């Protein structure tokens, strides 16, 4: 099963490689990884998506907690959470294709962030499924390049 793990860490050199090294050294796989500072100075949040059965995820979480630089680890898949990823796509948009692509951009509520005679760069934010759907749709026009941030996620506030 896919899990989104949110890790609050001390923002100091080597933290990322400690976390990433823990995954590789124990044969766990990282699907996406995102790191950025939090509101509290000196602390960063890492969001990692990974796959594994219950026991593997339990080990991953415990091992992450064991790292001296880790403050908190939460498996967001256990609770209801909001998940978003941002993606930039460079799409071939010559001639008649352009209007069709722009219509899709509109439907998906994406943004065109760069225009040239041959291509468009499209910015899209959303859950994994939405991003995949967009890629599937745009593939026929020719996607030249993709850059993705990996998921970021937060637990929902109002939970029954």
């Amino acid at each position, binding site marked *: 099963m896919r899990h989104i793990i949110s890790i609050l*860490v*001390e923002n100091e*050199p*080597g933290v990322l*490689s*400690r976390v990433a*090294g*823990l995954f590789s*050294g124990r044969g766990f796989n990282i699907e996406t990884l995102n790191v950025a500072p939090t509101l509290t100075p000196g602390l960063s949040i890492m969001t990692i998506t990974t796959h594994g059965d219950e*026991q593997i995820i*339990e*080990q991953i979480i*415990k*091992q992450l*907690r*064991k790292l*001296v*630089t*880790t*403050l908190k680890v939460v498996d967001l898949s256990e609770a209801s959470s909001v998940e978003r990823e941002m993606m930039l796509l460079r799409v071939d948009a010559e001639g008649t294709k352009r209007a069709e692509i722009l219509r899709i951009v509109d439907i998906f509520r994406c943004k065109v962030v760069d225009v040239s005679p041959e291509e468009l760069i499209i910015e899209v934010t959303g859950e994994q499924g939405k991003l995949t759907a967009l890629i599937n749709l745009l593939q026929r026009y020719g996607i030249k390049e993709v850059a993705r941030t990996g998921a970021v996620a937060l637990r929902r506030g109002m939970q029954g």
Partner: protein
Amino acid sequence: MELSGAQILLESLRREGVDVVFGFPGGAVIDIYHQLPNYPINHVLVRHEQGAIHAADGYARASGKVGVCLVTSGPGATNTVTGIATAYMDSIPVVIFTGQVPTPLIGNDAFQEVDIVGITRSCTKHNYLVKDVTKLAHTIKEAFYLASSGRPGPVLVDIPKDVQQAVTEYKYPKTIKMRSYNPTIEPNVKQVRKVADLIAKAKKPIIYAGGGVISSNAHEELTWLARTLKIPVTATLMGLGCFPGDDPLWLGMLGMHGTFAANHAINNADLILAIGSRFDDRVTGKISEFAKKATIVHIDVDPTSIQKNVLVHVPVVSDCRAFLLALNREMAPRLDEGTATPSHDKWLAQVQEWATEHPVAYSHEGAAIKPQAVVETIYKLTKGKAIITTEVGQNQMWAAQFYRYHTPRTFLSSGGLGTMGYGFPAAIGAQMAFPDKLVIDVAGDGSIQMCIQELATAVCYGLPVKIVILNNGYLGMVRQWQELFYAKNYCATCLDVAPDFVKLAEAYGAAGYRVTDPAEVEKTLKEAFALPRTVIVDIVVDREENVYPMVPAGKPLTEMLLV
């Protein structure tokens, strides 16, 4: 008080109560060595950095204090990696100080530069590169705190040369508080009660103790619990010494080379109290067949150890001693009421029967010296009062099976990593901690050669360490596997060319004996143990003797090859 980085390090060591440092100098730590004579710290100059880290580790295991190791950058640092991994696998508190090239040169492939923090990230509990002298004192305090608290382990501090030379105001913190590191020491009260309730129902309970009992100094509490409730005790290799080896409740070690009684008891038990042990594959055998009838209670200070290999019914995250104190307190009123535990007499009789029917044994046939007999003789002569270190392989297993350990910290062996070459430098460390105790390294002719150069260290510091080589001319344990499971294809395990260990001892200024006649073993060992010098006793033993019992790797614990 303004001090240089080098002085800060040494002053901090003094304040941590460090009385001995095992090290080897080099360009990147020369500033520290320059200051060393001004501080009340014994420095033991080893002959290879691997010796330094194993000695620091042996010192820590024997004394219960933090071991300290000081080496230079680059090759000095990388030479310690095997020893760091050894300490990491066995949760031994050591602090390793490495020199580093000056900060402006870091990352430039400077002379003797290596990213030791990167290299040791996966085999240290934590590590640091100190880039600012004002942070040095705090980092050292933190390193000692991390190494010795929670689940202990090695911590490395990498100090660039310019940081050693830079000067700052010295202030050593009294305590350390880290928002990201708060190990759980006290057990959950409800869980303790649950364990007591389980004991009150168990008809076939067993205690399976590990190194955590020793590192948390919980042996007295464990012994009280076992004796009061009459629960039989088995231990892992790392746990030997946590329970008196001459007690009728003692079953001996369990696992691959464990006793028949221990392995059958664990497989038939209805309650397993796993205390400070981690269900290593050498202990469990085939995991799906392990202890299927038992409710498993697992006590460990490290939550990652719990549910890692086996499914546990009652997990307790706690320091082993804190848990046992709480459990014993919980037990006291139940003992008065007589509800602490049902009678185990039938179970004890069954366990006892297994023990008498299949003791660890060996064939006495043939004219050659039996290695097991050598270990038995060592026990006879020392009455269990010596500190035994071992190398790795057959010698290690025989030392575990045929010597009885009565007190903790008297058996020092590389359990998790299985590091050949560990025993002798570890014996040097143990002897530094206890100059008056008899320290014996039980060695094989293969592993002793991995750190043999430390003979110079032992002789230089007048350390009367005894090395007893069970010399069979083979890398014996691998040969045993080749014999049993690889159609006797003895590829690369015969040590055709070996040094004359007696001459070698003498060349280093130690004493050397060779024994080939079984009748000479006791006499020679007695003489060697009485000598106040470093001694090698090279005992030529039966070449193809095997370690039994043996559970083939991946088989259930009850499928044992016996003698």
